[in-house]
């Protein structure tokens, strides 16, 4: 009926499609964690708007599949353990 191969009204008809759609590809700068400096205070985990901070045993790590590179974590880190690095 439609010439266009899209779902009416831009409906996403199944859940969890974010697992296929890795929004980390939008990133132009990536946060890099210095695990020696990180004290696992989790401020970055609280602030991250994309829930892209992963909690490990002794320090955090970045989920690059979903981190859009906004840099809030680097800005908020009291230990300056996160540095923003140009992608590419």
């Amino acid at each position: 009926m439609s010439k266009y191969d899209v779902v009416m009204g831009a409906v996403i008809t199944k859940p969890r499609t974010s697992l296929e759609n890795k929004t980390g590809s939008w990133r132009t700068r990536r946060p890099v964690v210095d695990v020696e400096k990180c004290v696992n205070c989790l401020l970055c985990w609280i602030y991250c708007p994309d829930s892209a901070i992963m909690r490990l045993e002794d320090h955090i790590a970045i989920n690059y599949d979903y981190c859009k590179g906004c840099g809030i974590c680097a800005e908020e880190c009291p230990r300056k353990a996160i540095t923003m690095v140009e992608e590419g």
Partner: protein
Amino acid sequence: MGRRIGLMGDEAVAYAVKQCDVGLVSAYPITPQTIMVERISEYVANGEIDTEFVCVESEHSALSVCVGASLSGLRVFTATASQGLALMHEVLYAASGLRCPIVMAVANRALSAPLNIHCDHSDMMGSRDCGWVQVFAENVQEAYDWVIQAFKIAEHPDVQLPTVVNLDGFTLTHCMEDVEVLEDEDVKKFLPPRKPIYWVDPKQPMTFGAWAMPNYYYKFKLQQQEAIMRSLKVVKEVGEEFGKLTGRRYDTLYGYGLEDAEVAVLSMGSTSGTIRYTARRLRESDGLKVGALKLWLFRPFPEEDLVSTLEKVKVLIVLDRALSPGAVFGPLGSDIASLMVKHGLDFKLLNYTYGLGGDEVTPEMAEKLFKLGLKVAEGAKPPSLTGYVREVV
């Protein structure tokens, strides 16, 4: 056959809504639409209808509530006018983009400033490109009839788009007419329950209102364009079915005297009655070859029907009830000019604005317009191709 009762335009709209088994109404009262909201809330309070009525603090919220409710699969109605429609503006696009078959009545009213509560079409014309199917009623009967048809058009599987029924503020909303209403059973048969295609359901989670990147956005918008173009056929089918039921057949437009008219006046809304009355008088008493053309369906623009209807016309006077400041023609005039170019039509086009803020066109003014048109048909130069009716004739 239905019963005849006295109803004002607002009441007639509310009465139609009452019969359409609407799941939810959310609306914010604004003159001259207020009585619609009052009557519907009375029906709800009296337990006459099983409709959820959601009070909100603004028109922006009213339509937002309607979008959510429509996405949940309900049949939804709202109504507004003037500033209210302007405040809804951004949500109008969300409703059509999300393919919510909401029906809205707009009691057409001028926009401030200066403050004015009377009729013109600048509210709807300001939101002309919102992607809703747009019809204009000439009288109270038509307002009632169009609301019932609007649900059927909007909810048609080929359309799935919101639809707005325009009725002139005060001239229709507050004037009582002898209206033939359908029996509830007949409306039920004509308008079966809505069958949503996608709806919010926790058992079957879906995402509504997601964003689209540049490589997809245009596809959704063009798909929406396909749907509104398909609604042309649906409007005609629904109008025919409604005609079989009531004896009042609807279409995209209604012409009078156009089989041999040299001069025709094109209008929308209540003024169409004044124009047709005048055309009939001039034809019957003076034998003048004049005709009247009322446009019921403004969006989608019924190109083919207009082209075939205007085949023999030498002069077409298009009346716009909204000012498009700084533009070449008014909104309707521009559409007709585009139609002429696209379809190679050959008649003289005069496009006059009228009726701003309730400044009605009288039968005397309509007569002068026809006579001006006849002179132009004979080769005279019109005082101007554009302008304000009161200043032109």
